[in-house]
């Protein structure tokens, strides 16, 4: 069995114990939390304020969770290439975030590797502009 690496939003996690079987990717609850931030609680899978009721079809006898089935339920894009699986955010989540008009936050490094978050500039007007070297 080859090791699987999960990229979930910007988080990259190698998961040597994850099991690919058919269209499923089985993770222990602990691995699920490490890789995705979704924690198994009595009321469901929870992250921040959000909780999603767990469907029995996503669980196996060993208490593992099928991340692929969960992502389908969440309408997340899934892209797979030779042991590396990337998960994005659903179009509705992205769209709602943008149309709320609260500028989506992010953290990125500057040229010296120092991290900057957009939210760190609260209290000032921000002119956020993009460019590329190409």
């Amino acid at each position, binding site marked *: 069995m080859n090791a699987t690496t999960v990229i979930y939003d910007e988080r990259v996690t190698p998961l040597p114990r994850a099991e690919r079987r058919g269209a499923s990717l089985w993770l222990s609850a602990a691995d699920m939390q490490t890789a995705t931030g979704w924690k198994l609680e009595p009321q469901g899978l929870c992250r921040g304020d959000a909780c999603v009721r767990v469907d029995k079809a996503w669980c196996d006898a060993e208490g593992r969770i099928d991340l692929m089935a969960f992502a389908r339920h969440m309408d997340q894009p899934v*892209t797979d290439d030779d042991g590396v699986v*990337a998960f994005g955010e659903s179009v509705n989540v992205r769209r709602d975030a943008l149309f709320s*008009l609260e500028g989506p936050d992010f953290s990125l490094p500057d040229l010296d590797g120092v991290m900057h978050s957009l939210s760190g500039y609260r209290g000032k007007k921000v002119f956020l502009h993009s460019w590329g070297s190409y």
Partner: protein
Amino acid sequence: MWQAVYVELKDQGFEMVAVAFDTAGTAAVEARIRCADLQDRPPVLARLMGWSDDLWARQAPPTYPCLIDEGHVVAELYNMRNVPQAVWLDEQGRIVRPVESAGTYDMVPHMNRETFEVPDAAAAHGLEVRNNYVDALRDWVKNGAASRYALPPEEVRRRMQGPKADDVIAANHVRLGRYLYSRGRLERAKHHFNEAVRLCPESWNYRRQSMMLDPERVGELNGGPDFFAAFDAHRHLPYYPEADLDKTGG
């Protein structure tokens, strides 16, 4: 240049943040941003980009934060499709102007593709577009919500383009492609960037990045025949739609 505008406005409760969409990371950006011969850049570039003599003369290496976005994350969050584009956020972090061309006029149809020279009429228009945009920015920094260029929420939403279903799939290919690039799996990385271009043809960021996704070409400006061929082949797609500075929209 933006640095000159930044120096002018930075003490008025204003911050400028630049984000570079560059999968090769610092290596790609460093060469460009810290070039020692900034003052020697030919004036033809000022005409091409519409910078006034005044701002061009005051150009300097940026002292505002220049962030590196290897995964084009901000492009996905804000649905940015080209560079340079900008979004304005007020003191509460709320969007008061959605993503739009940052004072850029589409010069490609007008320019000489070898010398980058542009005819006087196009240069004059480019200068006007840039000046109007920079003036709008100055007005907003000075007047805040009272500025006619700070749009009310319903107008921001009306102008805003949200992502389509294929856009988030394209962004996910970039997410995976960026990882594969960082692991040296160049051919697979290219495959995923090409998929992103196919799914989101409106994104010039993805197209231009995919053309330059090669360690041999890091930091190089893609202004050769390949770029112009791609430009000509996609002329039906918006490149630099002019920012609409009229509050009511059109």
